[in-house]
């Protein structure tokens, strides 16, 4: 019961702040709401009994990546007059088709997962380690090794790309 109340409260906050992120005029405020959003997502993880993921969520997203967002926002000074913004209807078609695709995807997932029998993703009994942190590590290097490596490759590519973009004269 308490769990459910906490979950719905946190979920409502997440959604509310997410709406604020995209609806706020001031870019810095929007970034701040994003931080709050991340903090509540971390709270959700704690609720799910995954404190390691929660701490990483705060450390990496709230503490690292959003600071960089802020850095960029402050550097490029986006406080332009409203008329300088591009026409909101210009990218409308692309936006709609993208969100439609996402919606379809979500629907498909919901549809097929309801058909499948509900199985726990990582049955604790099969793991030789106990403790949240150890379990995350175990899963990451056994069942999800290939996705993990692919993600790291992607990050590497992104990093090289960023360096190439920034240091064009090299």
């Amino acid at each position, binding site marked *: 019961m308490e769990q459910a109340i906490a979950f719905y409260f946190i979920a409502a906050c997440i959604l509310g702040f997410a709406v604020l992120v995209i609806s706020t005029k001031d870019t810095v405020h929007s970034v701040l709401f994003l931080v709050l959003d991340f903090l509540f997502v971390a709270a959700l993880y704690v609720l799910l009994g995954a404190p390691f993921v929660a701490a990483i969520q705060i450390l990496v997203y709230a503490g690292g990546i959003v600071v960089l967002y802020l850095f960029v926002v402050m*550097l*490029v000074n986006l406080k332009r007059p409203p008329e300088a913004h591009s026409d909101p209807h210009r990218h409308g078609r692309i936006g709609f088709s993208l969100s439609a695709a996402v919606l379809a995807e979500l629907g498909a997932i919901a549809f097929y997962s309801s058909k499948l029998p509900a199985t726990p993703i990582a049955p604790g009994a099969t793991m030789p380690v106990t403790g949240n942190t150890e379990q995350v590590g175990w899963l990451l290097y056994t069942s999800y090794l290939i996705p993990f490596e692919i993600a790291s490759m992607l990050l590497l590519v992104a990093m090289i790309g960023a360096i190439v*973009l920034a240091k*064009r004269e090299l």
Partner: protein
Amino acid sequence: METPAVHHGAMFDTSELVINMGPQHPSTHGVLRVVLRLDGEKVVDADVVIGYLHRGIEKLSENRNWTQIILLTDRMDYVAAATNNVGYCETVEKLMSIEVPRRARYIRTIMCELQRIASHCLWIGTHAMDIGAMTVFLYAFRERELILDLFEEMCGARLTYNSMRIGGLPLDLPPGWDKKVLQFCSIMDTKIDEYEELLTHNRIWLERTKGIGVISGADAVALGLSGPPLRGSGVPRDVRKDEPYAAYEEMQFDVPIGTAGDTYDRYLVRLEEFRQSLRIIRQATDGLPEGPIVGKVPRLIKPPAGETYHAIESPKGELGYFIVSDGKSTNPYRFRVRPPSFCNLQGLRPLIKGHLIADVVALIGSLDVVLGEVDR
């Protein structure tokens, strides 16, 4: 002022940030104002704005009699007031062809050098403070206090001494003063090492000063720099040696010069000047001749019509007085000071271009300007 956008590739256009440093800023040493145009933290261009302390000393002096001006000169470089007095009195003595007794010239030399140490103490303190080393500041002020005590005993004032008269000195030395000066010299010897211990081989200090604000000897001469900023660039120019005044002809001392012309060399030059000044003070105190302290000065000071320029080496550089007398009135017709800080400050803009904000404060400190003298 046009601010062109800096292009970092096609995607990002960032405009420059114009930042106003001063006239109220902790490290502009008074009321200097520097308008910086920054690209990130890098200084693209700067405009040095002065005049916030302008009191019209030149104009005032043209309406005061010759003796009254001495106390106005105190107010220019107020951390080296005695040096200003000496420069002015010698210029008037030159205009009037007055012979100054040897004892007075010796005492003037001692005072000039004590004043140089006091001024350099203030410089090393504030310069180190600007770079973030706060302890040197209080150490240097501790020693400067000893000099101020000596001056207080000598002429009753601690900052603006009014300690010279045309033709000599107002008063002879108090008894035992020379002993105290020698005592101070032996204290100061060890204290200079103390400053060096904190800074000279400190890695951060080296990183902050080496290669910062490099200026070649030829450029320094063209910019009209004088004093330690010029000598730091390797130009052995010292008015005390080249055009000796007071009793410098009879003194043995070296003119330290730098090689690289960066902030570190200017620092080393001034540190060595501490030692050379102590050497001069010891010589002058040991060989202090007996005799009168005032030369033959007419009751009414009224130099004959004519003009002259006389320069001395103040702690900041070449301090020149250009005085025109019309031969009729009891005040100068034209009184002009060539303030070393003013001319040295002119070098700030070329020096700080391309450096970071942190270097700007280091370079202001490295030029050692006193705004009272810049603005007069």
